[in-house]
């Protein structure tokens, strides 16, 4: 188990869980989103490379209506 901060909320995930797995869990795979992992932007090719650990901060953003 690992406790991470996902979009400002505390979330508990399994160990050996990657960003790819996280996106799958929240049904966001293939969506137009961008990810920031501990303050660094992660490109799609690297979604499987990082295993999430305690206190990691993940931000998942997308486009919404705006002026």
């Amino acid at each position: 188990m690992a406790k991470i901060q996902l979009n400002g909320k505390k979330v508990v995930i399994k160990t050996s869980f990657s960003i790819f797995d996280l996106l799958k869990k929240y049904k966001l795979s293939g969506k137009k989103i961008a990810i920031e992992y501990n303050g660094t932007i992660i490109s799609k090719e690297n979604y499987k490379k990082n295993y999430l650990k305690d206190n990691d901060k993940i931000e998942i953003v997308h486009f919404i209506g705006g002026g």
Partner: protein
Amino acid sequence: MVKLKKDIFRVAGKKLNSRLIVGTGKYKNFSETAKAVKASGADMVTVAVRRVNIFDKKKPLLTDYLNPKKIIYLPNTAGCFNSDEALRTLRLAREMGGWKLVKLEVLGDKKTLYPNMIETIKSTKTLVKEGFNVMVYCTDDPLLAKKLEDNGASAIMPLASPIGSGLGIQNKLNISLIIKQSKVPVIVDAGIGTASDATIAMELGCDGVLINSAISNSKKPILMAKAFKDAVISGRNSYLAGRMNKNNLAIPSSTNKGII
């Protein structure tokens, strides 16, 4: 029919069919947003970058209603109050789908949403260095507008009046001065209240206008979107046609020759 010279609008090498750019905020729902965008004839829309609501998997997505392959998304930095926040937002936007053409706005004051031009110029420099094409929301100060152009801005976007105020163009003289000096497109952004305001901006010689609240906050947004489409075309044609001279006294429209 008179054959008119093709009047093409280009921003950062992108050819646009419409000189009206619309914002996608504050509509009742995405369906209304999509209908209004369609009625406006705009081929570019501004969008904001925000956190995904991860716990609501059924929440509709803007991209389901406005196809980013068919309409140009212009990611903005609405809500950013310093350079770091704005850069972070636009880097994320670029990651999302390769968006290089972006709209920068760095706000300085919560009440007026007036842009912080010091942070705006700083951010423009960095973004241009990183390969972005930056359309920049700014004050209507000609000197600062020039500074933005000198630093590589792809378009200058002076405010007509405060964001969402609907007060129209407050300083026509400054907007005219900016138009005269700029080699990149000048697009009036913020403060337009109604269709005639957009016509005035276009008659001054603006290359385009960006409208959100004036459409979304009207009683019938879809009809208002159409009104803006026509207003922008009218204003542009009127500018291209060149208005008559003003005279202080009357000049008869019918000749006096042959009066009985």
